[in-house]
């Protein structure tokens, strides 16, 4: 990959990766760090990564960097507890997408990641499997389970309202 292609990959994918990571970890500074680390790693392997495969490489690297970070932090703090306290809110929801965003936060991490890769980036089961290191069947199961959870979340909320 040339320097120009590398810079093009920054233009094309930095926002998408940032969005994906931010949605997963909800911390802008850490999300920025992960994006920066990801491109740092890409730059170190710039000669061996082709431009055609750079998108998959970036998402794979970012995903695993994020997982590593979450694992590290779990040793220090109960992430789920922080997550629930820090990001829950009691405001009224303005639209369905906002409810879905809230529901996505409640998905288990693996389901959340595959759903986001599917919906945000339109990746196939096979591509998601390569990025996350899961099997294709696992990815499919997670997506189906995630969809059911999101749908049920909408139904339950409607019932409450």
């Amino acid at each position: 990959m040339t320097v120009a292609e590398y810079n093009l990959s920054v233009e094309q994918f930095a926002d998408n990766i940032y969005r994906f990571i931010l949605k997963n970890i909800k911390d802008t500074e850490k999300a920025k760090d992960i994006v920066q680390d990801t491109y740092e790693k890409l730059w170190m392997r710039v000669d061996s990564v082709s431009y055609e495969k750079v998108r998959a490489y970036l998402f794979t690297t970012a995903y695993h960097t994020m997982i590593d970070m979450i694992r590290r932090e779990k040793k220090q703090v109960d992430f789920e507890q922080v997550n629930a306290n820090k990001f829950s809110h009691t405001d009224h929801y303005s639209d369905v997408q906002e409810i879905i965003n809230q529901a996505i936060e409640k998905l288990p991490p693996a389901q959340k990641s595959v759903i986001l890769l599917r919906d945000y980036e339109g990746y196939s089961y096979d591509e998601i499997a390569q990025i996350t290191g899961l099997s294709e069947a696992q990815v499919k199961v997670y997506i189906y389970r995630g969809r059911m959870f999101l749908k049920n979340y909408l139904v339950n909320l409607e019932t409450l309202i």
Partner: protein
Amino acid sequence: MKITFENYISIFIDYFEGKLSNEESIELMQFLSSHPELQNEFDQIQFLFLQPIEAEKLDFTYLLKDINQLNEVNQHNFEELCIAELEGDLNNPVLRGMLYQGINSSKANLKTFELYKQVKAIPDKKIIFPNKKFLKRREKAITQTWIYRSIAIAASITILIGMSIWFNTNTKKTAISISNPTPIENQRVLANQTISKERVIQSLPSDPDRPYKTIKKMQNESLSQIDTANHSPVKSFTQLEPLIPRQSYVMAYFPNREFIIVDENILKRSWEGDFKGVETLTVGQWMNDQLKRWKNTILNIPAEYSLSKVVETNFAQLSLQSKNHVIFRHSADTLYGRKQVEVNLGWVELYFSYSTGY
């Protein structure tokens, strides 16, 4: 190996556990042929050991089901089929027809299907990565840039040489003036005010219970090591604030330690080939050298932990590869092009500040 009627059972077991050598196995077989009455016992022991199936690899793929193979739509599979349809997994036209019949057969089913249509995450395009320019790399520098950079570096070197001369001529005087120093914590000292090595040592913490006591123990040795670094001796110790803009240098700063070690030699670093052939330290190399040198002295990091390695890709990009517990933060202060790397080791924080110099 001697096989007797007292030990033959344990030898049978060793045989099936694969512990016998070829010669011992042959010996055992000879023993068995001499004592055929033990053959039955030998066979029974054999069944105690499960033999792994090596040749045959079990294939359970026949258990996998394709949703398109379903031949009916019922309340148990309705939702799964809805998801499959919306995910584009359903390609059996008969099944799809049945599914849509099911969807339209009741309001509840229709509502369920509509709900599934809605459960898609839509990215917020307003969220963008800030400062993408910091991620980008320069292509081959154009001649004009090279000229400006050369001038900037030459000017920086000139300034530093001037400062060095000034320091050398004023060190003695300053050292005398602070021969009985007051604690300099909370004390603001003008930039570039020269202080002697003695003062640096005196400013080290005196409380033995503080986690920095190692520094006190190692002060002479560590400073001596720093003075005799690979390159020219450290010429001065200065206060951190304020940084001098547009001047190239790298510093290490120990909070509450009140001293900074300035290494001027890294000015002449290689920057993406612009200084090709010039053997000089890079910012990252210098930091790695310092961290390595301080690991067992000032920082007192246990041997089983490895340090983060400073990774340098170009003059403006610097990061640390994090290993084990060594945490880092890399922040960029665009004012004056100053960069700062903070290494938080848990018990001591180490800052590296550097400016790009142009």
